[in-house]
């Protein structure tokens, strides 16, 4: 009741206002005295690098974390020291996490109206009310989804609609969307923006939480930048561009230059001809030259990772052939690939690339144990440590010593340990799958430097990515993959960056 009175007497008051919100985890300050507000029906972007505090902030608003005492969260003018998940929801604050938090095994209807299945545990679910709530939420977005389809069978874009509808079904007033566009095509992004416009028209505020904002900036009114747990500032969206934002996010001036080189001697190291695996990729042909950095760009599901796995011998080609240094190569397993001189640094370095509990030295030496061993196959710790130390020095890995467990390192340094592990095998071809995912802008630069140095030493590099700037500024040539096929080739500098994004998101 109080809220209604307050909001009608003070219509200019923001819907949500934070004052002096701080959060410490142990010794580290995740958020430092944040002052921030979201207006009714506003579209707002909250940007910052990994570790800038944006996820902590939304978790505080969702009631997952309690802020340190001293700050207030005001919703329609009513101050709260902290929110519980239940309070946040009943005040109209809804967070759509990046993973969408849906239940793949349940139907669209049940996912949207799951709130009506909480409470009174032994009563039957209110079938009728649930159906009505789901239909109403879908109608508000003018979305047409089969209510009885299992969510696990829907494409990502439709799952996102389901997640938004779940928020609407419990009467969301402000919707936080964490990295909503990261796995959408351009067309799907447009549908999402259309949805956001509808929400705005209905007085629902939307906050995009992201590390980039090319796509959403066109409908956002304001942008707030966080860096190292502090608010850098809130800007009118029209005032800032991508470049300016990157500087605000990192606090550094970033020089973007095209690094594409024209290689004088074009010795083809890896050739792929008409490679096909049904349902994954089709008729893929490419040539990767010695010392070249070849970008392979495509959206999630375009078949780029599947192709990489086949080139690394993890899955057999159904037809087509691979040639290495001119000779045909048959890969029955990744052992064959490693022996032939093909190395692969996976997208998910944490689960596939490293044994986090083992030391840096153990991780780096694992792929070359055969070579390090003596005649009995025993590996002297001293030899292992020498090898690791040389790579730690060459790649500038920041660690106390090579005996430190990998999990004690930062993301960027972990990534370099993975690189070292493969470089120790002396590869001819290095496949890097999204090497900078989850790495800060600052550390990204370090990784690009390493990649360029390797290329200069003659390693042929296939750089797989879904970020246009990454391949545009750091590759010599870029192949665009779509629907399992190579859809186009770009030479950075000759073609411009915009053309590449247009092709990717078309």
């Amino acid at each position: 009741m109080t809220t209604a009175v307050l909001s009608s007497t003070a219509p200019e008051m923001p819907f949500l206002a934070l004052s002096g919100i701080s959060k410490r985890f142990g010794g580290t300050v995740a958020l430092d005295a944040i002052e921030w507000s979201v207006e009714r029906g506003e579209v707002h972007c909250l940007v910052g690098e990994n570790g800038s505090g944006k996820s902590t902030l939304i978790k505080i608003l969702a009631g997952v974390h309690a802020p340190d005492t001293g700050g207030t969260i005001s919703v329609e003018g009513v101050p709260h020291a902290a929110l519980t998940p239940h309070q946040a929801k009943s005040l109209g604050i809804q967070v759509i996490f990046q993973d969408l938090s849906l239940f793949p095994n349940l139907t669209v209807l049940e996912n949207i109206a799951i709130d009506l299945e909480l409470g009174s545990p032994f009563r039957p679910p209110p079938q009728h009310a649930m159906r009505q709530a789901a239909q109403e939420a879908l109608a508000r977005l003018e979305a047409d989804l089969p209510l009885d389809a299992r969510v696990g069978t829907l494409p990502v874009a439709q799952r996102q609609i389901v997640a938004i509808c779940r928020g609407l079904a419990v009467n969301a007033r402000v919707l936080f969307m964490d990295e909503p566009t990261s796995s959408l095509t351009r067309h799907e992004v447009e549908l999402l923006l259309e949805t956001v416009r509808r929400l705005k028209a209905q007085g629902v505020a939307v906050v995009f939480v992201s590390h980039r904002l090319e796509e959403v900036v066109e409908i956002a009114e304001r942008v707030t930048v966080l860096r190292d747990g502090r608010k850098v500032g809130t800007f009118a969206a029209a005032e800032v561009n991508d470049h300016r934002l990157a500087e605000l996010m990192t606090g550094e001036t970033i020089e973007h230059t095209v690094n594409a080189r024209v290689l004088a001697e074009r010795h083809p190291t890896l050739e792929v001809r008409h490679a096909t695996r049904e349902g994954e990729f089709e008729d893929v042909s490419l040539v990767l030259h010695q010392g070249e950095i070849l970008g392979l760009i495509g959206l999630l599901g375009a078949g780029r990772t599947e192709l990489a796995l086949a080139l690394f011998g993890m899955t057999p080609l159904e037809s087509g052939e691979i040639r290495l240094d001119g000779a045909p190569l048959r890969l029955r397993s990744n052992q064959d690939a490693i022996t032939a001189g093909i190395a692969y640094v996976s997208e998910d370095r944490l689960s596939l690339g490293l044994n986090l509990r083992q030391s840096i030295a153990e991780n780096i030496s694992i792929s070359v144990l055969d070579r390090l061993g003596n005649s009995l196959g025993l590996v002297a710790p001293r030899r292992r440590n020498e090898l690791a130390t040389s790579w730690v020095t060459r790649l500038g890995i920041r660690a106390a010593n090579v005996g430190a467990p990998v999990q004690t390192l930062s993301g960027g340094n972990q990534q370099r340990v993975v690189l070292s592990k493969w470089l120790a095998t002396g590869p001819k071809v290095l496949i890097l799958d999204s090497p900078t995912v989850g790495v800060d802008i600052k550390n990204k630069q370090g990784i690009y430097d390493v990649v360029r140095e390797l290329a200069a030493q003659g390693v042929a590099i296939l750089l797989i990515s879904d970020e246009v700037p990454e391949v545009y500024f750091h590759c010599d040539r870029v192949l665009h993959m779509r629907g399992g096929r190579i859809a186009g080739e770009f030479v950075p500098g000759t073609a411009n960056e915009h053309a590449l994004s247009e092709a990717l998101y078309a």
Partner: protein
Amino acid sequence: MPRAFSVVFGRTETALAAAILIAAVILSLSSPYFLTLPNFVNLIEAYSVTTVLAAGVFVVLVSGGIDISFAATASATQYLAAYLATSYGFPAVPALALAAALGVAMGSINALLTYYLRVVSIIVTIATSSIYYALLIYLTNATEIYNLPDWWSNRFAFVRYVTASDDVVKITLPIVVMVAAVVLTQYLMAHTRIGRQVYALGGNPEAASRIGINVLGVQLLAYGYLGFLAAVAGFIQAGRVHQAVPTAMAGQELNVLAVAILGGASLVGGIGSMGGVVLGVLFLAMLQNGLNLLGVSPYFFGVVIGLAILISISMTGYAEKHARRRHVARAS
């Protein structure tokens, strides 16, 4: 009502139903006794204990957990009821009620340990299973109880029917209890809010806690319910063999899990139906009975169970792989 059918029966269940039909046709052609009423009713009674346990295990599997201590729970509760009835002359209702309460408590211990220790439930229940069995044998000196009271060991028939060929067919207590357990479980899982929460928790535990599902409460329900059904199963089993033995149910764990998995319950949680589990029981029961009638050695039966599980799981795996490939092709 195709929708209702697809909710009760997923793809695995449909395949299983087809397999059962085929097996039934083959067996009835090979053995004239197979498709007779007495054989069928005997078969159902013989599998009543397995079915009641499988209904409980199914609930835990859907919640995303696994519990193998139910056999120990069934033995312990059965023994407690028998001990109270024979040594203290407890009448049926209080003896069984106390035993059921013990079953719920033993199940709840599994839920609490899984929740608070944040350890996978299979490890927790391997440990509690060992503890429960050892405690039971230690406390009872492995003494068997033979003199069960009449209300327990007499075979009470709800329906008695004499066939044309002079065979007596009896619908006995185990069959009635089994049907009740199946109906109750189906109602709980498909038609109550907490049942739907069990599915949600199994489908995505992180999301379940984010949207405000009481994770501990749901787990207490799932494991406690299994504990309760284990007590029920223990009671039926003792009645059928006229004795309570501390190790009565040892070795049942894998059979029961096999039935639930064959019926389409997923080991990762969130998937499965009571109808499927019943089909799983039916399938195994028919196979075993058919092999018996055909004179195949009972020692060979383990091989058949193992093969059935392998075939069923590889079929599911194959279907998923293809679904994923189709998805990749469509998304791009």
